[in-house]
């Protein structure tokens, strides 16, 4: 599986993402700088990592979403290439219009950095095929702007179409309907606030995130 990790000024989980992808897929991903206008040919998976791209100026993810490489990412997503956005990556995907809604300041105003229990809602996507719907997994979060909001109609549609991938099992950041991760209509774009790349080996304390990458490897490659 050929993967690419997009790197913005201020990304800080790009290397963790690369390590996770290399461990699971056996091949190191291409690191693609935000000024690039094209993705490596034949890329099977695009990962948009966590961090604080452009210092969160204007709004989290707002500047990154308008950077040159995002045009290529949008085109690839339209062709059906899987795109995984984690944390700041999720914020960038909503700002880019690839996913609905917005991620706002946590309801409690605090930066939340801890392990959280998630309920898997959808086990049919390329990203979640190695989980079982209803299963509870534990993956760390680390964010200030993870409070997912969208209008009621959008939330109903996301739920009705099975596009809520993960929900927080307990209160985390004030997200509408405890949404932690969502899919686009076609199911090839996943945005999630928790960091699966930080839970891929026993040394991390747990490895529930590893299965997300294993599922991808199985469905994509």
């Amino acid at each position, binding site marked *: 599986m050929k993967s690419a990790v997009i790197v913005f000024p201020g990304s800080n989980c790009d290397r963790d993402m690369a390590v996770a992808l290399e461990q699971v897929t056996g091949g190191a991903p291409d690191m693609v700088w935000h000024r690039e206008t094209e993705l490596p040919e034949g890329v099977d998976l695009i990962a948009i990592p966590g961090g604080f791209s452009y210092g969160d100026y204007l*709004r989290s993810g707002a500047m990154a979403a*308008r950077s040159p490489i995002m045009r290529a990412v949008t085109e690839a997503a339209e062709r059906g290439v899987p795109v995984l956005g984690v944390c700041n990556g999720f914020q960038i995907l*909503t700002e880019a219009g690839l996913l*609905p*809604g917005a991620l706002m300041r946590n309801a409690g105003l605090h930066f939340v950095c801890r392990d959280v229990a998630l309920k898997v809602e959808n086990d049919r996507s390329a990203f979640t095929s190695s989980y079982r719907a209803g299963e509870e997994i534990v993956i760390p979060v680390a964010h200030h702007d993870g409070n997912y*909001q969208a209008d009621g109609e959008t939330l109903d549609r996301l739920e009705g179409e099975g596009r809520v991938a993960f929900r927080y099992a307990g209160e985390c950041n*004030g997200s509408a309907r405890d949404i932690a991760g969502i899919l686009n209509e076609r199911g090839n774009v996943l945005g999630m606030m928790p960091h699966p790349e930080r839970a891929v080996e026993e040394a991390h304390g747990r490895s529930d995130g590893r299965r997300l990458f294993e599922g991808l490897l199985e469905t994509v490659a």
Partner: protein
Amino acid sequence: MKTRVYVTLKNGVLDPQGKAIHHALEGLGFSGINDVRAGKLIELDLEENIGDEQVEAMCRKLLANTVIENFRIEREAAA
């Protein structure tokens, strides 16, 4: 030409920052505050030939996230 863009959260969108400011004001002993909403002011210095529709396009494409925010444009009359 000086142009001001005011970006505010839409009605009904929870504003945790506004809430925190509200609590802090009350903590300082100020009373009679019904609600506080925090927003942004963006000042642009534009060439004379930049029309209103272009400023509006800037707001829609970048300055405001219209999923959660409203914007209001205020243009200074030419001197």
